[in-house]
């Protein structure tokens, strides 16, 4: 039994929409950081280097 063509087409279309849905919360988070001028990933890098220096 093979996958029907119409089903395969819908799966492809919805799969492409899903890529956008996966990315949406990440985009929104960076937009939030951009508006507030925050860069938490830099803070973590700084924190890690301080720990490395102390060692």
């Amino acid at each position, binding site marked *: *039994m*093979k*996958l*029907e063509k119409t*089903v395969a087409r819908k*799966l492809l279309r*919805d*799969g492409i*929409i*899903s890529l956008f*849905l*996966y990315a*949406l*919360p*990440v985009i*929104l*988070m960076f937009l*939030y950081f951009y508006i507030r001028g925050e860069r*938490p*990933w830099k*803070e*973590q890098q700084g924190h890690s280097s301080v720990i490395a220096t102390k060692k």
Partner: protein
Amino acid sequence: MIKLAEAVFQHLNSWGLPVLLLIVGIIEFLFGLYNKQADRNEFMIDLMSFAIPKILFRPVLAYFSLRLLPVLLPGMQGVFSWVPFFWGVVIIAVADDLTQYWNHRLHHQVPFLWRFHRTHHSAPYMGVAVYFRNNLIHVLLFSQVYLVVTLVYLGLGYPALFVAGMKALIVSAAHSSILWDKPLYRNKWLHPVAWVLERFISTPATHHAHHAVTSDDGIGYYKGNFGNMFFLWDIIFGTGIITRKYPGAYGISHYERDEWYAQFLWPLFKSKVADSELSAGGPMVRMDDEPAEIGVEEKTRT
């Protein structure tokens, strides 16, 4: 009692959830909410599905997280620990549940995958036991737990565990035979709440429809309503229906009670039921059995 409830929720992702669901399962059983279809064969499938993954998964997950992930994602342990809790929850909730929506949808729409998911649908009743009821090979190969463990490895531990707990509560409540959403449809003043809730998360009405024996009565809809925690995906992709009603019968129309071990361990063990999808040489997808007056349209489970 309050301390016990606190402890259950604090340890939701370890022993808390199984204990909570066991209590709900006993309540369902005592109130006769599992209908008379639940015989010894069904009980064995439910029991094995509940117990065995809990024993088997520990060493598998330990190997996956301690041995495999450092090789697959070298130097990335804790790399996303800077992500704030709120955003972590939102990102994981979408990543986890949308992946499971796809996992679920593909198991229904790709004929080759259906037999791995069939055991979950063969139960002729609904209840929290059905939430756990799965083919073991399916659980080991397609579990979402791998995604959660990977996210924990990447530094999103707290949000991942929070989402896992929340999801387990919502999805098990959607499988439950306790129809907690019924008052939302009965009381008119609660209809706005119902409208939002039934589009956002899975409820007994929408998820029971997915487990219905037929899609032809205007209530059941096993061809859709694939959402696990969020029903929103079904709304976005047009794969859902909302009726605010509950199906009259659950399961698979042509189900002839395949042996519990065949359902739990297919393809390692095959069913002895002739023409079963799980039997040796059986069809990949069997057409639904239909009453003569309805069976005009050719229907499949896919």
